[in-house]
């Protein structure tokens, strides 16, 4: 039956009932004045439905008693009385099947229509004026809508029109409003740990995020096309490894918090799933949860006051003060350095180590250190070194092999104590004083070196052959000031501690943006998930994964 015009008598009776009996009615009549129900608000929806139901019941009662009956509400269907082909069983409508109105940029979606129950089959043509979409199978009840890859300029900016035709009947046209959306993850300005873009900033599909176990970090989410946070669920595939907060509902650009799980080492995938039945993934990013690796280091500054050449260039340097700068970088791999100065007042330590008086620490390669190193190691002990990697800063160091047997002028081979791979073609000084000469290694076989030219002088057994080494993995680790800048020395300290098993257990790699680069020529100080090529040996190293997490 039609609701209109309203029957004033039944309206009055229904009002009496509503304001006396219905909870919402009583609320609206609390002060004795009947406040009307709002015509469209959600708050009053239930009240309106109750009022209408009661009105219809009372109207039906009255009409059953002889009132005017306009018949039951027509549910639709049947002939169109204005259609010249009335009587041809024209469909009054058709149904667009449930669909998601957000399409992933660069992807496609399917839309279908169905006939109303009992309606004859029509034919369908789909069109769009959007330059963001193309259509396939557009003369059928199911069409494929293909995104060209560009996101919409605004929400619902794209239109998809479907026209139903039936012979002898008027066309029925419907329009669907669509949004082509794009989601991108990127590094958040305030991230607490790492973000590795795999050297391809324009490809967000290969990026990785790190987070400390039982802590949190953030990743930046950028949404294009008019979509917002409420359109998506952000979920990690393995909630035991990481979870994330719900996105802010109305924002298209925000930092999303990721919470690391209670695991020492694990990987999962964070996915942005559209809130539609398809739950299509618009973007995903790898998330790695790690137990934080702590590297404890103590740094001593050593000189020999009896040897002027050992005087430090930076006697007042505060190496412990470099800790925040280092940690700001190594946090990317979920690691941190705890650095202390050996001397409580950060003074240099005077040790009479220069026994050969050459103004440097002489390092006996074959002996793994030798007398001068032992003197520093002996002084570099005590409670302040317990449980820490010891790093000794010195002015200079010379690394030596020593001749195992005497060599005569004109000899083209020499034999040294111990053995090591030499770089052929490199010139090295042999001997001291007037008989010192530069030799060049042509080839080697064990401890026997073949020279590229005969010796000019004779040399007794024990003569030093200086080897060009920047440092050795000794205990303590020896770092020479040389002519390097103070900043370089500080990063060398982190680099050498990074090699230690009890440090980061990382190898020398080839990447100047990484402080584990094999040479003091850094342009940045990152640690990477993206595999880095090893300098020595073969293969690559994934630093985040290699760092011990026990």
């Amino acid at each position: 039956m039609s609701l209109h015009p309203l029957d004033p008598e039944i309206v009055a009776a229904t009002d009496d009932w509503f304001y006396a009996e219905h909870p919402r009615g009583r609320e609206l009549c609390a002060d004795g004045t009947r406040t009307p129900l709002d015509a469209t608000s959600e708050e009053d929806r239930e009240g309106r439905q109750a009022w209408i139901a009661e009105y219809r019941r009372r109207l039906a009662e009255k009409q059953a008693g002889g009132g005017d009956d306009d018949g039951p509400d027509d549910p639709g269907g049947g002939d169109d009385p204005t259609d010249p082909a009335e009587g041809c069983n024209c469909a009054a409508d058709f149904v667009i099947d449930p669909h998601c109105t957000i399409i992933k940029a660069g992807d496609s979606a399917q839309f279908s229509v169905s006939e109303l129950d009992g309606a004859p089959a029509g034919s369908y043509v789909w069109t769009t004026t959007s330059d963001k979409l193309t259509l396939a199978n557009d003369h059928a009840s199911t069409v494929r809508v293909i995104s060209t890859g560009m996101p919409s300029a605004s929400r619902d900016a794209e239109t998809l029109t479907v026209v139903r035709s039936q012979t002898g009947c008027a066309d029925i046209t419907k329009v669907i409003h669509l949004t082509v959306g794009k989601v991108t993850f990127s590094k958040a300005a305030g991230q607490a740990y790492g973000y590795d873009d795999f050297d391809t900033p324009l490809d967000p599909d290969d990026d990785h995020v790190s987070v400390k176990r039982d802590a949190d970090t953030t990743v930046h989410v950028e949404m294009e096309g008019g979509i917002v946070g409420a359109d998506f669920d952000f979920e990690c595939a393995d909630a035991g490894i990481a979870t994330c907060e719900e996105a802010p509902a109305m924002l298209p650009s925000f930092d999303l918090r990721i919470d690391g799980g209670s695991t020492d080492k694990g990987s999962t995938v964070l996915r942005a799933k559209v809130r539609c039945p398809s739950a299509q993934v618009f973007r995903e990013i790898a998330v790695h949860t790690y137990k934080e690796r702590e590297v404890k280091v103590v740094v001593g500054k050593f000189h020999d006051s009896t040897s002027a050449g050992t005087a430090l260039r930076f006697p007042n340097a505060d190496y412990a003060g470099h800790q925040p700068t280092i940690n700001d970088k190594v946090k990317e791999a979920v690691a941190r350095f705890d650095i202390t100065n050996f001397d409580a007042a950060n003074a240099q330590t005077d040790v009479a180590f220069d026994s050969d008086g050459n103004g440097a620490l002489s390092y006996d390669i074959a002996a793994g250190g030798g007398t001068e190193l032992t003197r520093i190691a002996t002084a570099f002990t005590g409670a302040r070194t317990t449980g820490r990697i010891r790093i000794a800063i010195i002015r200079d160091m010379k690394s030596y092999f020593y001749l195992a047997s005497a060599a005569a002028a004109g000899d083209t081979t020499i034999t040294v104590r111990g053995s090591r791979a030499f770089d052929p073609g490199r010139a090295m000084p042999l001997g001291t004083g007037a008989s010192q000469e530069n030799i060049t290694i042509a080839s080697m076989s064990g401890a026997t070196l073949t020279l590229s030219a005969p010796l000019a002088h004779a040399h007794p057994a024990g003569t030093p052959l200086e080897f060009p080494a920047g440092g050795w993995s000794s205990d303590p680790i020896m770092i020479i000031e040389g002519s390097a800048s103070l900043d370089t020395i500080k990063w060398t300290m982190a680099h050498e501690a990074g090699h230690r098993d009890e440090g980061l257990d990382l190898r020398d790699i080839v990447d100047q943006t990484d402080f584990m680069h094999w040479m003091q020529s850094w342009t940045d100080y990152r640690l990477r998930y993206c595999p880095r090529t090893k300098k020595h040996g073969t293969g690559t190293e994934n630093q985040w994964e290699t760092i011990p997490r026990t």
Partner: protein
Amino acid sequence: MLQLSNDQWGALADAKRRQFAEEMADRAERRHPAACRKCSREELIAALEREIQTAHGHGLRNRGLLARFTDLSMVLGAGFAEREDWAQAILANTRLTPPQRLAELEEAAVFVVKGQGA
């Protein structure tokens, strides 16, 4: 088989719409006499033709649905579907079928009319 030209179809459609509008005018004079007294019979039929076309555009295409839509026009005034924001919002709701939209219009109109009366 007899085939009609587009012009012939158009003329036939105009005639059918006019015929149905006259039928609706009879109904309106019976159900909404006060409103109908404000205009002539010809003006009423012309207004109802426009309302029927509007209803058609919103997918209301059978006799019962069109009759109920013209009832709304009589109580809310001709052109309500273009004039009233609340009506436009209901008619734009693509999640509802046309009969469901009409039912929503009717129910909302009850409280609009009651509000006007108050």
